């Protein structure tokens, strides 16, 4: 079987349920692939892994991928399983922030390591400085959990709809005690989990064919996972996921982001993401060739 190494962006969890299901249910094998799924972690940069030859394809956010492309790692989006974004910012209702207008002078928790671009794009749009002071916001590099909100170290924190949000609920917050700013709902979302491969490798038809099979099987996995979230959560648990209930809930939430299940990249969303990055000078010139529909088109045939 053809070997494919997939590098995830984060630890094993429901967020990547589709790939684990595809592997577990033998969808990859049916396509003649032997897929090795490598979990990530807070300091694993999938871009670096693929540049070093440690993976054939990676799960990455569009922001990180475009930045890497400019830094000489020619990543190409070959599929976009997540058509919506799961990022949001939540604030305590009993705290000072109720609307976007209240941000000024307050402290916001943000994830860095390439996950900060949507936040900065949003602040850019609001015209808020991120350097602190009375007319800007104070930014904290947020750790892995919701403690900053519980302990009132930050007024608002970043969460994923499918993950940390539920940890806040577990910590005793009721949904009505939280103000939620959802990036997708605000129209500020930048593309999240997509599949990326190296441009030079894609020139090789054999590799391209391999990717077609990979994407086809993966999307089949996603379809199965969204239809059977509990079973998918079990599969994730078997592969090293933590906290079963949490994974089941996560599968349910993730299903809402996957969309039509074709994995096809929405060009408008791509354009918005690229523009937001350009506006903030995170990238310096309009990227070109950073995505292709070839793979998804071939896969859906």
């Amino acid at each position, binding site marked *: 079987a053809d070997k494919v190494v997939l590098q995830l962006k984060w*630890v094993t969890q429901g967020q990547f349920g589709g790939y684990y299901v595809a592997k577990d249910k033998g969808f990859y094998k049916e396509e003649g692939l032997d897929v090795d799924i*490598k979990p990530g*972690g807070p300091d*694993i940069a999938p871009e*670096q892994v693929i540049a*070093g030859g440690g993976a054939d394809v990676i799960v990455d956010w569009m922001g990180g991928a475009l930045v890497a492309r400019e830094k000489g790692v020619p990543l190409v989006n070959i599929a976009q399983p997540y058509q919506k974004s799961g990022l949001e910012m939540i604030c305590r209702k009993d705290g000072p922030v109720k609307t976007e207008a209240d941000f000024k002078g307050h402290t916001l928790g943000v994830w860095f390591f390439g996950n900060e671009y949507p936040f900065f794009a949003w602040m850019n749009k609001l015209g808020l400085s991120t350097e602190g002071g009375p007319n800007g916001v104070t930014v904290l590099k947020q750790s892995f*959990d*919701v*403690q900053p909100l519980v302990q009132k170290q930050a007024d608002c924190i970043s969460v994923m709809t499918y993950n940390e949000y539920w940890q806040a609920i577990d910590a005793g917050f009721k949904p009505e005690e939280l103000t939620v700013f959802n990036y997708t709902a605000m129209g500020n979302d930048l593309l999240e989990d997509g599949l990326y491969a190296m441009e030079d490798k894609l020139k090789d038809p054999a590799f391209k064919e391999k990717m077609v099979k990979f994407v086809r099987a993966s999307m089949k996995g996603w379809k199965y996972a969204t239809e059977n979230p509990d079973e998918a959560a079990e599969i994730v648990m078997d592969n090293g996921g*933590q906290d079963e209930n949490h994974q089941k809930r996560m599968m349910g939430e993730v299903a809402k982001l996957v969309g039509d299940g074709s994995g096809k990249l929405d060009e408008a969303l791509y354009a918005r993401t690229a523009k937001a990055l350009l506006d903030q000078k995170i990238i310096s010139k309009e990227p070109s060739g950073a995505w292709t529909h070839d793979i998804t088109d071939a896969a859906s045939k």
Partner: protein
Amino acid sequence: MKPDTLKNKIIPVTTILLALVAIWYVAAVLMNAPFQRDRDSRAGVTPTTFEFIGKTLAQPKPILPAPHQVAQNVYENTVLRSLSSNRSLVYHSWVTLSSTLLGFGFGMLLGILLAVLIVHNRAMDRSLMPWLVASQTIPILAIAPMIVIISYNVLTGDNALAHLLNLDSDASRLVSKALISTYLSFFPVAVGMVKGLRSPEIMHLDLMRTYYASPMQTFWKLRVPASIPFLFTSMKVAIAASLVGAIVGELPTGATAGIGSKLLAGSYYSQTIDIWAALVAGSLLAGILVSIVGLAAKIVDSAMGGRPA
């Protein structure tokens, strides 16, 4: 056991340990109180002081878990789980232990090799020594993830080294984690062994000269035995450093097993009890490793005519 051991060791140590546990309990109540108050007021209940204290010591995700919560968690995850379950602390300790030992082994080899070079070669001594010190001021732990990822990729990628070693992905993961341990542990060994290999007195060296002993004979019959106490002292430091390296190497690198990954997973889900249980497991592991080295030192020492204390 001599009665002195009881009086001079066991009683003071247990007293202080008990005092620490007591302080821990008080701290747990104090630190967990605000959240509990918050919670109670949201739920609209007003517990008695006694109930309140009880609740602060029984939170599922406390800021500071009470000792018995940690103990219970450790007990459940060691005794009650099968050893191969990935919730077993024994299993995670084993994973960490294996890369600790591997890194420690590499570190010892590298450290001893450097020490031998430095002791036998003036140019090495003068050019290498300052850089050895400088090497330890690099915050390797901060770039541990990068190192682990890059070396893992090199080991599994398509290059000459990878073909030469031909490791599978588990072995590569192990080796790349062990590199961090190696980096942290070679230094104390190198420094200690340089000291040790240079520890023979001038008179002992002169004695060898009067016998017209070859450099090899001087090395094996004098320098090596003289350096043994130094070797064990640095081994104690090195094995502890190795363990730190292995844990940090697992922290943010997507490892799914090991004490570091338990710390991370716990921290990711605010499962403080799990964090503390992992810390306890790490501490036990450190204790066991250091004691083993200490025991080995004692045995070797008495075989080499060491005087009982």
